[in-house]
């Protein structure tokens, strides 16, 4: 077990890798009652085509999410209720690149952790339970389809991406999930829930030595020695977009617009990717954030309201920026938005002073987030799986330069790779 100390931010992390490949991190948080565990497989909705030990497989869309639902169900009932019985609250979620199982508890942590590990490690699927789940997930898909924000988001992704599975709803479609069988589930479980493809993060006030031994003994008892070779197959995605403009109608009160800037590029190494991710947060905040004159100019002229929001995603296989808001006049907004991008590109907009305030702000937000064991568990997982270290963020923040911010902004906010989707009321 290795101790990593981050003195500047007063945090301690213990790390250990089991012989079967599982990595465990314990983040020590003295004084907290709540203890938090996440057990995560590096497996999400994008992993629909893969090769394991030389054999190639294609599985139906939505299967990672389906599998997540089914892991709670065992021969003798729903494990969810057992967590409640042991005083814990459990949950799980699937994103495009990972599936996380988590619980929080104040007492009986070991008992709940054992329950979590067993639940995730021991599959139980029958034809009947799979059939039953299809009905439940159909309802979930319908609920998302009724959500205007969700619809708009996926329509926009579909205008940006030709082939990448990031454009597909994480839950799949009613058609795709009806094809799922228990054989698919066993295959995906044995492939992606292998300890070498998972990470366990424990956050709270622990007896670290005893806890790590507890995890290690459990993992050793599984008797897993063989580590499979997994290769994920992603389709080739061209740099250009699919469809520039699109209008959809729904039974809504307000018109919404979403803009997407697709930014495919040569794959960056982990550090470069994290830098670019943060640099884009800086750039977007400086140009469109609540400290920006542009923001208030658009606010005062009625082009935006406080539904206006933006985000940037910088991932190994794709990157994009998205802008969304409710507006009665989407075209005027779009035109002014593009003008602002041009103005920023042409003048010396990004300054040391602006960047310095941004850095202070993001550092403050980051430190405030570290009050939350839940945030730490989730973000630590995400950063780890992406090959970064959550606790090195302050150093990267400190290191980013004005030139870098400007270059990234110019590169990503390229209107040749922009799509727009408008969602408006019927009629």
């Amino acid at each position, binding site marked *: 077990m290795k101790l990593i100390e981050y003195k500047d*931010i*007063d945090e301690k992390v213990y790390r250990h890798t089991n012989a079967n490949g599982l990595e465990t991190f314990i983040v020590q*948080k*003295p*004084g*907290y*009652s*709540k203890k938090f565990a996440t057990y995560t497989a590096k497996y999400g909705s994008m992993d629909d085509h893969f090769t394991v030990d030389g054999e190639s497989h294609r599985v139906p869309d939505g299967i990672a999410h389906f599998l997540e639902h089914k892991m709670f169900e065992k021969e003798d009932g*729903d494990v*969810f*209720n057992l967590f*409640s*019985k042991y*005083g*814990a*609250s*459990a949950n799980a979620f699937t994103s495009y690149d990972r599936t996380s199982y988590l619980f*929080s508890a*104040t*007492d009986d942590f070991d008992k709940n952790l054992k329950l979590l590990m067993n639940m995730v490690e021991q599959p139980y699927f029958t034809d009947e339970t799979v059939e*039953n789940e299809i*009905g*439940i997930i159909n*309802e*979930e898909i*319908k*609920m998302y*389809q*009724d959500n*205007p924000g969700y619809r708009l988001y996926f329509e926009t992704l579909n205008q940006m991406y030709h082939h990448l599975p990031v454009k597909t709803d994480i839950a799949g479609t009613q058609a795709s999930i009806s094809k799922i069988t228990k054989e698919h589930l066993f295959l995906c479980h044995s492939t992606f829930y292998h300890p070498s493809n998972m990470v366990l993060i424990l956050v709270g006030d622990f007896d670290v030595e005893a806890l790590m031994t507890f995890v290690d003994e459990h993992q050793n008892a599984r008797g897993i020695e063989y580590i499979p070779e997994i290769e994920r197959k992603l389709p080739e995605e061209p740099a250009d977009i699919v469809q520039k403009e699109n209008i959809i109608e*729904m*039974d*809504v*009160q*307000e018109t919404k617009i979403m803009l997407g800037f697709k930014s495919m590029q040569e794959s960056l190494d982990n550090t470069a990717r994290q830098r670019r991710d943060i640099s884009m947060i800086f750039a977007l905040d400086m140009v469109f*954030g*609540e*400290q920006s*004159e542009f923001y*208030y100019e658009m*606010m*005062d002229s*009625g082009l935006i*309201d*406080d*539904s206006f929001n933006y985000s940037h995603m910088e991932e190994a296989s794709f990157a994009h920026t998205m802008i969304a808001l*409710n507006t009665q006049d989407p075209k005027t907004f779009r035109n002014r938005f593009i003008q602002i991008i041009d103005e920023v590109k042409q003048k010396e907009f990004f300054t040391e002073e602006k960047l310095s*305030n941004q850095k*202070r*702000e*993001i*550092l*403050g937000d980051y*430190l*405030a987030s*570290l*009050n*939350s*064991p839940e945030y730490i568990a989730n973000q630590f997982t995400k950063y780890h799986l992406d090959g970064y270290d959550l606790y090195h963020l302050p150093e990267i923040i400190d290191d980013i330069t004005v030139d870098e911010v400007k270059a990234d902004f110019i590169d990503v906010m390229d209107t040749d790779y922009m799509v727009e989707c408008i969602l408006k009321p*019927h009629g």
Partner: protein
Amino acid sequence: MYNVIKSEVNNIPVVIIETGKFKTITLQIQLRSKMTRDRVTARNLLSQMMIKRTDRHKGEAELMNHLAHYYGAHLTTGASRKGQDHIVSFAMEFVNDKFIKEDMNVPQEMCTVLNEVLKTPFNYDGAFQAFFEREKRLYKNRLKSMKDNRAQASFQAMVDTMFEHEDYKYLPHGVLEDIDALTLDDVKAEHKKMMAEDDMVILAAGSVNESITEELSLIYARETPVEQTHQPYPHAAVGEVKRETDHQQIEQAKLNMGFRADLDSATMRMAFNVLNQMFGGSPSSYLFSNIREKQSLAYQIGSQIDMRNGYMFVMGGVDPENLKKAETGILEELERFRNGDFKDEFLNEIKGMMRVNRKEIMDKPKGLIALEYNHLLKSEGTPSWEAQLESVDREMIIEVSRNVKLDTIYVLRESEKNEAD
């Protein structure tokens, strides 16, 4: 685990919650007065304006940059309801000096900003008119966009039906229809009233001790102490069940049910709280495990309560074909509690879970502040939270569940043209 110091500064009650586990310090100002329709909308608009412009920082960008300079201090406002009261709160969260490598007194500066936030509206004049109009528009948009959230909109519609002739139907975030008529003078007048008559408390949580009192004294001063009573709404008897159905182009129907209970003591309110957790307020509840998991009658199902006022609300996302079955099923689950059809083991499990949840609240600065604020509102001699929970037994659950009466059923379902028979 933490230490609470209560005092008074400039005639304002102050609660200091001392704990070393957070990396930030959180200050909160609570302003409480009786909720009425003629004030609630102005109070919401006012509080939004207050955190955006002050006498010193005349533009939002300027104020935001000032806060960013102080390591991203967060200034926020919120509105909520407790009993018959409306509470406007202002919170400032900032990083503990210990993590800052330069020499700056962050607490002192943040208390000064809060003072400016509280005082600026006294000086609202013509120069604020355009800003006021803009904030009105933003506020209207916020309330309008809530209507596109089906779950929220159908909850609001249920509340409108259930409390048709009661003030409770005005939600703490205000009334959309009342925004247009508001003037800058109305907002100024509301501010004057709020600063003079509201019950005001200042709370601080984090790595702070009595010495922060000096900084807190910068926030505000009153010439004399002001105190407001705190009461729930009187119980209104339930008559015939009210029913309302609306139609929209949606795939999944929303089923909302409202109940009332007549609760005469803090212990019975706690029993009501426990009943809610057992019935529909937690993942191991009857509604979740039976209606959703076993019978697949709903994708989403849950209940929540207004404990002080004795109201319970059930909210479900249901396949339109299952509406009737779900409604009957939900009432049957409640009936089981009235008949004592539950295990002591389950009751104890839920009580255990509530203890865990309470401990978890204490892991958050704003959670600690909320708990300590609730303490202040309790009348003298009220048993402690733990003593109340401890005393809740099987008989009390049966008694309180028999006291819960169905008042209203509201349904939002698919458009009539494709409606099933």
